């Protein structure tokens, strides 16, 4: 146990401390491109220089706040859309015959095992001007000019919902599978309409599944890089992309670190919430 513990401490926790440290240092034209925080000033005095400029930049340049707000909006709406599509699927799978259920589950898991990059790439082929969707619609005579879909917010939403859908279905299915369906039958025997029974029984009982699945979509989607970069076009301002560009294009490591720290502060409450939902869920299972 000590080995994984130390491993995670060294490669998962310590790095965050370094990110925090570098977020307070000056940008420097050197390798690595930042100045040390601690410097010997004179013979016996060690000076700490904390530079708040990086954080000030994030709050004064509207680009960053805008990117943060947009990321939260995109992640939230994508999570909602995943729920709308994924809930009926998870429900249907949980209520299917055991043999069918296994096949359907396998079909949900399969895309999850094939490369995310390749699945996002598939959407470029579908959405572009001379892509599959436009070609089909044109040949059916529904449209007369190709629709612009690729490199729009629409494409980005499609990509995110598509990629994260299995993450929502699987925990939700695991929760619904444990459901006692006799409760529903009892409610219907007592005169409840199916929709009412669903709203009063199934939905509240699957609360933990909904929450766990939504977190698994929302948290990574806020920091998503690949999908906005490939499908969203140059105006798709997401914070994960801003961090990437600051780091790789501008070589502004301290600014990228400050972005990472703010993003982390934003997401930690959700991560803790997720962990407590998970703990409740596994306590209920035993």
């Amino acid at each position, binding site marked *: *146990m000590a*080995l*994984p513990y130390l*491993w*995670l*401490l060294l*490669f*998962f926790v*310590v*790095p*965050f401390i370094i*990110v925090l440290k570098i977020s307070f240092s000056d940008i420097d034209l050197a390798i690595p491109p930042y100045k040390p925080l601690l410097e010997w000033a004179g013979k016996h005095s060690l000076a700490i220089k904390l530079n708040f400029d990086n954080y000030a930049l994030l709050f004064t340049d509207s680009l960053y706040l805008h990117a943060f707000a947009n990321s939260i909006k995109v992640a939230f709406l994508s999570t909602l859309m995943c729920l709308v*599509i994924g809930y009926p*699927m998870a*429900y*249907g*799978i949980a*209520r*299917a*015959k055991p043999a069918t259920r*296994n096949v359907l589950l*396998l*079909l*949900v898991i399969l*895309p999850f*095992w*094939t*490369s*995310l990059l*390749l*699945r996002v*790439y*598939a959407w*470029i*082929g*579908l959405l*572009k001007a*001379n892509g599959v969707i436009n*070609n089909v619609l044109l040949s059916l005579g529904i449209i007369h000019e190709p629709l612009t879909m690729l490199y729009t917010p629409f494409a980005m939403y499609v990509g995110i919902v*598509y990629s994260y859908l299995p993450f929502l279905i699987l925990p939700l299915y695991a929760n619904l599978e444990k459901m006692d*369906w006799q409760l529903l039958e009892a409610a219907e025997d007592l005169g409840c309409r199916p929709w009412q029974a669903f709203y009063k029984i199934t939905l509240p009982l699957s609360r933990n599944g909904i929450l766990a699945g939504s*977190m*698994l979509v929302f*948290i*990574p989607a*806020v*920091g*998503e*890089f*690949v999908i906005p970069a*490939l499908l969203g076009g140059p105006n798709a301002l997401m914070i*994960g992309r801003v961090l990437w560009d600051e780091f790789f294009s501008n070589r502004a490591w301290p600014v990228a*670190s400050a972005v*990472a720290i703010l*993003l982390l502060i934003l997401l930690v409450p959700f*991560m803790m919430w*997720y*962990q407590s939902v*998970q703990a409740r869920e596994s306590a209920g299972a*035993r």
Partner: protein
Amino acid sequence: MNYRSSFFILTCIAFGFAFLYIPILSMVVFSFNASKLVTVWDSAHSPTLKWYYALLNNEEILDAAWISLKVAVINATGSVILGVLAGFGLARFRQFRGRFTLNAMTTAPLVMPEVITGLSLLLLFVALEQLIGWPAGRGITTMTIGHMTFSMAYVTVIVNSRLASFDTALEEAAMDLGARPFKIFFVITLPIIFPAILSGWLLAFTLSWDDLVISSFTSGPGSSTLPMVVFSKVRLGVSPEINVLATITLAVVSTMIVAVSVWMARRAKLDQAA
């Protein structure tokens, strides 16, 4: 229990699966398309295997695939060792100092945005190099360490849930009969959790094989992985060779998944019979 599903639910399932599979199937179909325009079907010369030949002669992609394979195998093996230890500790020892931290540290990487993990690992490697001179530059080693850090979290979850669901009576009986803890682990616990270890290994392999973001941060010159090469190609638009790559990936993955799940279903049936 009845298995009836309403028409509404069936429609939702049908649409949901169409949504999941149409993009994938379109890549498979267009991998046999002769036209360089990829999505415009050239019916005169298709289906063709010419892009398959092109891919198999593309040095850049083959080199990258070889690097990816090396990283993925080392990563999967290392992640399984670390993940089994962590999962075992969390499932079997209810109370120990640092349990809460270990639990948090194995859950967080599952949801942590990759850009954060990638950036923080890179900054760690840079700081370590300045401090102790290791790692000298970045490449396959640093990339593998990065992959292991998030893959082991997945293995831990899988192993932990498998251990939580099986009866400790077997282990206790063996202990009563005088078996040493080490022997119990290898003779009883390990065979029982073997399916979890296998799925963990496969998942860790795939996570590493597919990873773009953490690899981009932690790799160095001359160690571009397959996703990195694919990403730079895809940024320039669609390419028929990528469709071929997707088709091959899909074929390998689905064969493997179906084989493993058939094997596990059979094993579960044997367990029930016994």
